[in-house]
């Protein structure tokens, strides 16, 4: 398949993604979540100290990150299965478009659309609500980068679900279950480990790293300030999971978490492409 065809398809799926009602709804909700209205009120009443921003950003991360997967999971989950059901998948693959080309285009289109929501959501919020100074744009940029990585992981996970299922409803159900698993059950499970297991720390760290939502939250919080500042000012920002990871890995925590997230990314991408190449396109 020529490059022109590939980018035509990427552009098509990007536009299709932007038209999706869920993306529009989520964008609006996410924007209001990101600008954080209560803070705006406190800010306008001059109730916040001048150096509130780093602390505020870390709480913003903890507030918004668990909801971020709700953008990519439903959109990714219906992406391929919807085309299987409607027959457009067979139609596209009956041309000279390869399976890899199709999946790449689909993934890139969705990734661009959802990344735009994340970047614009946080970016506009930073611009409007926080009046972020130039030095804080770097911090904001780091948060956005981690959010984009989390979004990409969730998108790939959802696409894998979409590839493996045959019905849109099934895929959506599994996607929501995955969100529930990472946002709720995972925390309960970690709590259970702490309370009931002899070698709790190692299991605790393993399960935290296996939860991309939680590990990316910790990574983004670490990005808002230096570790020393966090530990000195308010260590609860990291949460129990973050505290444990920082306690064990210390200054290597960022590298460990980032590596785990990148392993998630590459493993899921490889799995998506391998499974899609091998299965019947029906």
């Amino acid at each position: 398949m020529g490059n022109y065809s590939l980018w035509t398809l990427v552009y098509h799926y990007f536009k299709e993604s932007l038209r999706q009602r869920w993306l529009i709804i989520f964008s609006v909700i996410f924007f209001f979540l990101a600008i954080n209205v209560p803070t705006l009120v406190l800010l306008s009443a001059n109730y916040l100290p001048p150096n509130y921003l780093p602390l505020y950003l870390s709480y913003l991360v903890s507030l918004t990150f668990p909801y971020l997967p709700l953008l990519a999971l439903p959109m990714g989950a219906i992406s391929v299965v919807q085309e299987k059901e409607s027959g457009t998948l067979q139609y596209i693959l009956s041309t000279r478009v390869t399976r890899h080309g199709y999946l790449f285009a689909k993934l890139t289109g969705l990734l661009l659309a959802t990344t735009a929501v994340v970047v614009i959501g946080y970016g506009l919020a930073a611009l409007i609500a926080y009046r972020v100074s130039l030095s804080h744009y770097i911090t904001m940029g780091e948060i956005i980068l981690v959010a984009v990585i989390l979004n990409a992981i969730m998108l790939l996970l959802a696409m894998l679900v979409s590839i493996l299922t045959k019905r849109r409803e099934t895929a959506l159900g599994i996607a929501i279950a995955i969100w529930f698993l990472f946002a709720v059950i995972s925390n309960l499970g970690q709590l259970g480990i702490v309370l009931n297991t002899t070698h709790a720390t190692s299991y605790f760290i393993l399960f935290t790293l296996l939860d991309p939502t939680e590990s990316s939250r910790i990574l983004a919080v670490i990005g808002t300030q230096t570790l020393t500042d966090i530990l000195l000012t308010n260590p609860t920002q990291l949460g129990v999971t973050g505290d444990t990871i920082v306690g064990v890995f210390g200054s290597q925590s960022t590298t460990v978490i980032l590596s785990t997230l990148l392993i998630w990314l590459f493993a899921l991408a490889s799995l998506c492409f391998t499974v899609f190449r091998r299965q019947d396109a029906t």
Partner: protein
Amino acid sequence: MVEILSVNNVYKNFGKASVLSGVSFHVKPREAVLLLGPNGAGKTTVIKCILGLLNFTGSIYVDGIDVKSEGNVARAKIGYLPQISSYYETLTIEQHAKLMGNLKGASRNDIEKSLEIAGLQDVRNRMVKALSSGMRQRLGLSIALLGDPPLLILDEPTSNIDIEGQLEFRKMLQRLKEIGKTFLISTHLSGLDQLANRVVVLNSGKVVAEGTSNEILHKLALNDRMYIKVDEAQLSVASQAASNFGCVPEFKDGWLIVTLSPADKGQFLKGLFDKGVKINDLIVEQFNVESEYVKLLRVSK
């Protein structure tokens, strides 16, 4: 002549169910081959294997290119019209044609030409979701023609459209055949046999007959059924004449019913005239090609 499509010993299973069992057939350039069989015979599965949409064992070559190893190159030589035309419903006809045209490497002129052939140039701005089934099928054909592929594969092309649409569609296919397109048309009894040079009859995942329409009919030893009304006094003479052609005559409501091959039919009637038998009425029930295919399929099970 080199075959443009060569399907060799193709097997396909869905779980434990065997859908194709050693299917082989070939299509030469400029031929129109009809893939005939009842629902569930495996016609669509064969087509999906040709397009590389399904994994299979065996080999399929399109213009000498292996579908398994160079599927995208092989598919560039195929224009495909699926049984149910699936489109991106939020696009207009023109947007859809452009999208598919770009994917198939068609030029702007190609896109215009294919819209013109399908008679869609005046409704190009209409949304796809607002199209009738006949128009959807025409859009499907215009997309199949994009990139000027030498081989057109049509899966049940007339099954979802009304009679008027079917006639119009057949005319369109006839015109395409005249300009040298090669066709593989899958159908279950839809009267497209007039277009076909050859017929491949598929049943329960196997090729049960293959040849020109006439060859298949000859294989089936198809006979016409004649209802003849003669004076009662001459009934025995007429009956004897039929027996001479190896036919066992039947009698019903005053009619003599004789079943003979098309070749013997004329000779039999000439014999009656020669013997002075006066024919008061004559009804010839011609064999129905499609119903005879059905018989063939039943025999092959």
